[in-house]
């Protein structure tokens, strides 16, 4: 196994959590985000589709969902920036008896709201939601969603039948929106007791009925932090905005080279600003014309601009997957993405210019960012 290099982030550093098909990596940089140090690989050989950072209640805990082709998957966490990881004897995310299901992949790990510091949410394949109320010690399946009568008609996309997006409404603690490929979006208004499909205006190009109640192949949904009514959605063909917290969606594919893609991020302070990386067609799924372009809107999708400074514009047939783009919380915002060819890029100026942070990593499937704020005793 490869040697692992560890990093020691300091207060104020930006930390990137990078999940790949063959392990996880950490990157740290001072606030200027011009000089990056890489840590890892962690879990070499395991696919890490999901990573998350929990800074609530004085924690500085990294979560990862490594999945070994041989030994299966589970959630592991580190409180020392990757120097050591939990390795629970019993797999912590597992389907209970009676479901006739077995975990294939952990796709998403999301810390709960600030007012529920011990809550965590986890999306998996086969598509299901797990919840923990004890900071990840134990997990339980959301049975109402699992038992939803429409679940039998959800179908796997290219990546499998996965629950990949979990949006916790910041102002309504009973409301959670999830997205499934391929099943569409579902929302609960009663903290998970009941779930209803919520896909109004979202197209399903691959079905006879183009605007069904459910069954869309939603690739990613993001919600603006300071303006939760505003959401953006990258669909399997289709680029959308919602101004009513996801109840209805309008097409905003205005001037982009393709409305197909996976990755999407919203600016941490400006709800009118979002980032996408369009991909060509359904069959090819690479950046159009061999140009790696991040498209940014500053007007909520009325117009989009190609942000290319520092990105390869010739022979760059890249694919950026649904969880492989993110933003940090700084001003100006940092934007980061990784490709299936193992290239990691970052922008410290909201996409105006880009720099390569790594080249030659295993295929990147997940990128998350955090700004480190350590408890006093650890500084």
């Amino acid at each position, binding site marked *: 196994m490869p040697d692992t290099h560890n990093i020691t982030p300091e207060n104020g550093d930006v930390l990137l959590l990078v999940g790949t098909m063959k392990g996880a990596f950490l990157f740290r940089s001072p606030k200027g985000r011009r000089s990056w140090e890489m840590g890892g690989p962690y879990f070499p*050989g395991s696919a890490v589709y999901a990573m998350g950072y929990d800074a609530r209640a004085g924690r500085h805990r990294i979560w990862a969902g490594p999945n*070994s*082709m*041989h*030994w*299966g998957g*589970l959630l592991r966490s580190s409180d020392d920036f990757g120097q050591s990881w939990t*390795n629970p*004897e*019993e*797999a912590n995310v*597992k*389907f*209970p*008896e009676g*479901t*006739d*299901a*077995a*975990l294939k992949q952990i796709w998403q790990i999301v810390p709960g709201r600030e007012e529920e510091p011990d809550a965590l949410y986890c999306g998996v394949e086969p598509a299901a939601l797990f919840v923990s109320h004890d900071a990840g010690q134990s997990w339980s399946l959301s049975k109402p969603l699992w038992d939803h009568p429409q679940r039998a008609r959800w179908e796997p996309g290219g990546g499998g039948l996965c629950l990949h997006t979990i949006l916790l409404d910041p102002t309504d603690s009973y409301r959670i929106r999830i997205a499934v490929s391929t099943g569409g979006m579902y929302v609960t208004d009663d903290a998970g007791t009941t779930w209803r499909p919520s896909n109004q205006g979202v197209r399903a190009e691959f079905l006879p009925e183009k605007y069904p109640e459910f069954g869309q192949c939603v690739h990613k949904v993001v919600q603006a932090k300071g303006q939760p009514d505003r959401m953006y959605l990258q669909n399997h063909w289709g680029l959308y905005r919602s101004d009513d917290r996801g109840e209805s969606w309008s097409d905003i594919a205005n001037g982009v080279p393709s409305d197909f893609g996976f990755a999407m991020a919203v600016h941490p302070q400006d709800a009118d600003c979002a980032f996408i990386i369009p991909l060509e067609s359904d069959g090819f799924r690479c950046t159009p014309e061999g140009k790696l372009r991040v498209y940014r809107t500053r007007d909520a999708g009325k117009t989009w601009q190609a942000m290319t400074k520092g990105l390869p514009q010739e022979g760059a047939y890249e694919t950026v997957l649904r969880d492989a783009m993110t933003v940090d919380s700084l001003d100006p915002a940092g934007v980061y993405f990784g490709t299936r060819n193992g290239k990691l890029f970052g922008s410290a100026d909201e996409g105006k210019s880009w720099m390569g942070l790594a080249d030659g990593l295993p295929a990147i499937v997940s990128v998350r960012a955090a700004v480190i704020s350590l408890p006093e005793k650890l500084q």
Partner: protein
Amino acid sequence: MSVLSLLFVIPGPLRELAGNRDEVRIDGEARSVSEALSLLFATCPGVRDRVVTELGEVRPHVNIFVDGESIRYTGGTGAPVRDGAEILILPALSGG
């Protein structure tokens, strides 16, 4: 059912979950590979979820050999075990 003496050979990635042992010898009652594995899992509970899924099926990229023969060709986990059997758990050739 008589008591059998069984030797389990633990692969490197799972040794930490078996008390840092590469071999675990267990005396117990077992008629089949499935029952033999249950004895191992009772002794080393951390090994269970790495070797079998929630459905109790051996993971697709894990191979189990009893006395040198893969159980895929001898009846799966229902295959019989004998007193003194050596049960080898190995990761299958896979990856890319």
